[in-house]
Structures are given as C-alpha cells and as structure tokens.
C-alpha cells in the first residue's frame, strides 16, 4: 500500500480535498449568503378602478403573495384571512408560514421580488430599520387615509389605538403596521397568591416583601428568561420610565449624553433590580434558562413573578395548569416615581409590511385595510388570544382567557398613562449591548454603576450611527 508515485494516492487525495475543505467549509456557508441576486424587474399588475370600496385600485382575480411568521400566534388566523380575501376579490393567495424570515426573505428583497404582504417578526426577523433604510418598504400613508371597512365615513387612521402610527414610522414615514397590541410587565399566578395569602404589590418595597415571603416558602421570587436578557430589560427600563417620567424614556430613545450616566432615575432603577439579585430572590438557575424553560418553571409554581409581554398566555397555553389563573401586574413603582403604578408599557408589535417592490402592492394595501376591520380583528383575537390595534376591535361576545382579561383591565386602568420605548427598533446594536450588560448584572458579575457606564457607552456609540439623524421623538 502507500502512494505509488504516479498520480495522486488515495490518502493524498483525501488530504488535499480536506485542505480545500478547510478553506471553504467554514466560510462558504456564510459567504454564499452574501451573494445577492441581480436586480429583478418588477412588472406592474393590471390596475382596477379606484373607488371608495376599492381605494387602492386592486384588480380582481390577481395573485397575492403572503408570508407569515409562524410563532406564538400560529398561522391559522392568516389562513382564515386569506380565504376571506380570495372570496371577496377573486384572488389566488399563496401562503408561506415560516420562522426563518431573514433566511427566506433576504434573497427575495435583494433580487427585487419580495412578497405582497410580510409579517416580519420573531427572532429571525429582518430589522425594520434596516429594511426602511434600504428603501424596501412601501409608504403606508395611503392606507391610513383610506376609508375604514366598518364605517366608510371614518378614515382607517382614526380606528387605530394611539401610538400605532408613531411606532411603525421610520425616518418620519409610516412603513410598518404593528398589528398586535401588547402590554408589558410582570405576571403571577392568582391561585398561588390566593393560597399563600399574598397581595398584589404596588410599590417596589412591597414587591421585595413578596419575594422575601416566596423565598421563605422555598420558591423563587423573580424568574426571568436569562438566555434572552430582553425580558429583564423590560423591568429595568420600565422602572426608569416610571421613576424618571416620559422625559427619562425619551432621553434614552433620543440618545442623550446623560440618558443613563448622571440620571438618578436610571441608577435607582438598576439598583432596585440588583437588590433582587443580591438578596437571593431570583429563582435558582434562571439566569441561564431559555424563555420556555423559565416560563414553564414559573407555571410549575417555582417562582412568584416573571416579566413578559401579553403574548405570554398564548405562548404557554399547553404548559399552564387549568386553575393557574394568570394575572398581569404593571411593574411596581419606586418611591417618588413620576408615573403612577397603573402606568404600563404598551405598544403595537408584530409588524406587517408591504414591500416597495411588491408585485401586487394594491393587493398588499387592501389586505392590510381588511386586517383593520372588526371582522378580521375578532378572527385574530379568537385564534391567537391577543388584542389588535383596532380600537374596540373585538366583538364583545368573545370570551377571553384570564391573562388576556387582566391585561385588558390593566389597559383600562392605565388610561392615557402608557409609554413605549423605540430604541430597540431604531438601534439594534445598542439594544444588544444593553442586553449583554443586563445579563452580567443579573449574574452578579457587574455592579449597577458599571451597568450604567456600559449602557451609556452603548448610547454614545449609537449616537455616531448615521441613522441617528433621522430618528427623533418629541
């Protein structure tokens, strides 16, 4: 055996191909993703007649290409919508439900053949700021000014919950319809609290007291989704907004040089969260758990509180015991807070967009207009256990689950006292840096002062982003 001296021996061949593989394999899978297609040519579809019933001039019998993120809400609601749409307009809808939004859609955006409607959401979404910056999103202002399907005398704009337009605007242009109305805060089990005789805490001191009692009872006070520090940031940022008022929140979104550093509200908020860690009120191991792991542990009564948005109930549907009695709690307030306890972070998410280069743009806009009708909104609430941005958009006859019910009550109690951060949509990198700092804080590897320093550094870095010029809230 061995090489024969002529040509390539078997082992040489293996070795050489392996060497070639060493060069190509690790890089190739990523680099080939870099390859973009050529610019596609978009051919305009047939135009229908523009009328009050058909404000975008949708031609009957065309095609509609819909891509839905198949996450916590499933995709049954979208199938029901598409069927209704096809029936009304005689269109043929193609339906793609996926979690891999970026992988599937990025090549299509680059090649100039995006779908007509895209639900851009989930962990692998394409960031809206990035899409908008690249001029890939259609201006949805025409949608806002079109007549509502329920009441043609009203504009669609007037049927939306306040904040929807602001939330979906990039650089002053309304490009994304965030469809699901979400409230953020802490959650607990009504059953557990009743059994133990605990009451709903309204101040941070009361919150710590419940955590202390939980610890005595042998369970964790606060659980959080440690692998995704996004969730603990809800608590930190809400405490800042409540303590320092809307000004403190806007300072962060507007990348103020004193957004964190030199802002007493920020330091007080971070110190308050750190106290939970220091006193050992965290559920053991929670810092390393995924969202489903920690939420399931919380469903098994291993912790009193967990932070999350109002999608939690639908997400945990299978793991939640029948008598769990899920309850929403606005983040409790620190002493001398500018906003009341009832104030909540609330906003629209689950972005639906119409790409600028969509083959059937009129169809996409009409689809979005239909989504904002009471009929489609009710359909969504039934299928996905969540509220939409349509004002009073759910038929009163629909019975809601306890968590959603308590969230609705909280929304009513909050009244006009709602707030919402925009920096995660505007500055992905800053968001990611602050999340890293929070992970370190919760693991007790850094102190509150260091967290403030790192968060400010992230803000200062984002301020250098050329995009920072376009984003400003007042």
């Amino acid at each position, binding site marked *: *055996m*061995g*090489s024969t001296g002529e040509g390539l021996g078997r*082992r040489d061949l293996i*070795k050489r191909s*392996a*060497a070639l*593989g*060493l*060069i*190509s*394999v*690790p*890089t190739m*899978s*990523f*680099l*080939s*993703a*870099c*390859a*973009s297609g050529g*610019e596609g040519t978009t051919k305009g579809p047939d135009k229908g007649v523009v009328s009050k019933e058909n404000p975008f001039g949708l031609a009957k019998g065309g095609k509609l290409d819909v891509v839905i993120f198949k996450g916590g809400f499933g995709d049954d609601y979208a199938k029901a919508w598409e069927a209704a749409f096809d029936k009304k307009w005689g269109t043929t809808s193609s339906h793609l439900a996926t979690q891999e939004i*970026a992988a599937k859609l*990025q090549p299509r*955006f*680059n090649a*100039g053949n995006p779908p007509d409607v895209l639900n851009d959401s989930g*962990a*692998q979404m*394409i*960031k809206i*700021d990035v*899409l908008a*910056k*690249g*001029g*890939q999103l259609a201006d949805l202002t025409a949608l806002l000014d079109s007549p509502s399907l329920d009441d043609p005398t009203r504009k669609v704009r007037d049927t939306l919950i306040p904040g929807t337009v602001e939330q979906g605007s990039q650089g002053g242009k309304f490009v994304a319809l965030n469809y699901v109305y979400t409230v953020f805060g802490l959650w607990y089990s009504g059953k557990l609290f009743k059994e133990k005789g605990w009451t709903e805490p309204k101040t941070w001191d009361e919150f710590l007291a419940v955590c202390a009692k939980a610890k005595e009872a042998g369970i964790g006070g606060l659980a959080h989704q*440690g*692998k995704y*520090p996004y969730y603990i940031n809800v608590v930190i940022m809400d405490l800042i907004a409540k303590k320092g008022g809307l000004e403190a929140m806007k300072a962060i979104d507007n990348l103020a040089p004193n957004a964190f550093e030199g802002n007493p509200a920020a330091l007080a908020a971070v110190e308050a969260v750190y106290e939970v860690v220091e006193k*050992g009120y965290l*559920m*053991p*191991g*929670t*810092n*390393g*758990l995924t969202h489903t*792991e920690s939420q399931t*542990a919380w469903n098994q009564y291993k912790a009193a509180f967990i932070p999350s948005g109002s999608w939690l109930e639908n997400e945990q549907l299978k793991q939640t015991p029948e008598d769990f009695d899920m309850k929403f709690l606005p983040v409790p307030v620190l002493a001398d807070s500018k906003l009341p306890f009832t104030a909540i972070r609330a906003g629209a998410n689950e972005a639906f967009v119409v790409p600028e280069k969509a083959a059937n743009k009129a169809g996409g806009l009409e689809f979005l207009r239909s989504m904002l009708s009471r009929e489609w909104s009710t359909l969504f609430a039934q299928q996905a256990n969540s509220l939409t941005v349509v004002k009073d958009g759910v038929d009163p006859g629909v019975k809601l689950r306890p968590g959603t019910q308590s969230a609705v009550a909280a929304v009513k109690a909050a009244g006009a006292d709602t707030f919402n951060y925009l920096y995660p949509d505007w500055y*992905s*990198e800053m968001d*990611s840096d602050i*999340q*890293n*700092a929070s*992970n*370190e804080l919760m*693991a007790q590897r850094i102190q509150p002062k260091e967290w403030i320093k790192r968060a400010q550094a992230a803000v200062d870095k984002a301020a250098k982003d050329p995009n920072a010029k376009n984003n400003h809230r007042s």
Partner: protein
Amino acid sequence: MSQVARRRGRTTGFIAGFLVLPLALYLTFVIWPYVQTFGYSFTNWSGQSPTFDFVGLENYSALMDDEVFRGALWHNLLLLVFVPVITILLALFFAFMVNAGGRSGAGGVRGVRGSAFYKIVYFFPQVLSLAILAVLFGAVYRSDEGGLLNGLLSWAGLVDPARPVEWLNDPDLVLWCLLLVVVWHGVGFYLVLFSAAMQSVPRDIYEAALLDGAGRAQTFLRVTLPLLWDSVQTSAVYLGIAAMDMFVLVSTMTSGQFGGGPDHHSEVMATVLMRNFLYFGKSGYACAMGVVMLVLTMILSIVTLRATRRERIEF
C-alpha cells in the same frame, strides 16, 4: 489520424464532458460568491437592499478596532489548538485499546474484551446531527436543577441546589463546555478511522514487537503511531475545519443574537459575522470579516500540511 490518437481524442472529450458541468457549478456557487464577497467588503451594503456606497478600506480598519471580533478570533484559535489535539489523542488511545490493547489469548494482537461493542458505542454520537447535539447538551448543561450535570452534582452533594452552576452562562466555563461537545461528537468517528488504519497494519509487525518484549506503550509509540501518521494528519485538518466553524453549536447553545454570550465570552468569528450580517444590517462589514476568515483559514491549512509533513513509511 491513427487509431490510437482518435481513441485518445474521444477519451478526452468524454472526460471533458463530465467535467464541464461540475466546473461550472463550482465556479457559480463557490468561486463567484467569494469574488462577490470580496467586492462587498469594500462597501457599506446593508444586506437588505441592492444599493450601497463604496467605502474603501473602512470596514477593514474598523475590524482592527473591533474588540468583539478580536475576542472571537482568539476563541477560534484556542479551539483550533484544543479540538484536534484532544480529539485525536482520545481517539488514538481508544482505537489502540480496541484493536491492539488486549493481551490475553493466543496470537497476541487483539482488542480488549468487548471491543466490537465499544466501536459501535463510540461511533454512535457521530450519527447525531449538530442540531440534536445542541438540544441534548442544552439539557445536560441546563442552569437549574433540571439539568443533568446540576442534578447529578446536587444529588451527590457537590452543588448547592439554591446556587446551581450556570454552565453556559459562566464566562470561564462556556467555551470548555462547548469544546467538550465537539470532542464528544468527534472521538467516535476518528476512533473508527484509526481502527481501520490500524487493521491495515500487518500483524507480523505487532507480533515481532511483542516477541521483542515491547510493552503496550512502546508498541503504540514505536509501531502504531508512525504507521498511522497519514490518518492523523488528515484528521487534524478535518478537525481544524470544525474548530474554525463552530457556528451551529455556539449560536444555538449560548445567549445573544446568534449566540456568543455571556458577554461575548463564547463568541467565534462566524457568530460575529452573522450578527453583523443579519441583525445589525452591516453586511459590508460582515463580508470584510468573511474575507479575513478566508485568508486565515488558508494560511492555517497550509501551515498544518507543512508542519505535519513527514517521511512516508512503506509497508
């Protein structure tokens, strides 16, 4: 034209016919993306739009100052040393024990008792895909009492259940935890590879060594290893590929967008690249990283092949 020449011409055409299609595919799907990547690395392409500006070497100079990328590079180099060395040493040891480690019985050279069974057991991890491994070891390293390791350790009284070890959330442990998964996955395959090579070594060599009074260690170092050098070299190159990649494991098992957490302590070049490419919308910058990765891997593969070159032993 002579009969032979005509036949040769026909053969050339026949071979060329086979080569055209693969070559075209290779150029389109391997070489062309590289060329494109190189071009994009000089732009501020966002990855979501066909429009971008030329920015010259800006991406490369930014890369020099990028602490996260430098950290990732360092982790890749650490893995590049440890993954091949540990995997090959373990695989060699097990392969030797399975094939030539046993001493009892007539004839001398054989594996330890039950070696056929061991071979199957060792090879088993290779059958699992990396995605399954990530889930499996996610359960092993789980940071509360529900994790296999934490459960065992707290049962044995070595860990306080109120303060479980957060394996993948501990900056000092996370990289080693990942290393263990790769080694666990690889050892079986290389064991089988080395076993095959050992079985092709003529028995009389072992018997001669045995008659000369060589012990197990001597047999291994003086006989087995030199005869296996080609296979070891190939393995080192293959394991180098695994160590330079690591994307699937790191991105699924650790925290952060595309993994790399906690606080960049498990970052590898591929995860930093992907985060910039898909999440931060800095695709031009990510392409510059891709080019750096390409250059580094090219240098490394040349060095590996040169450094391990030895005189071939004929048998």
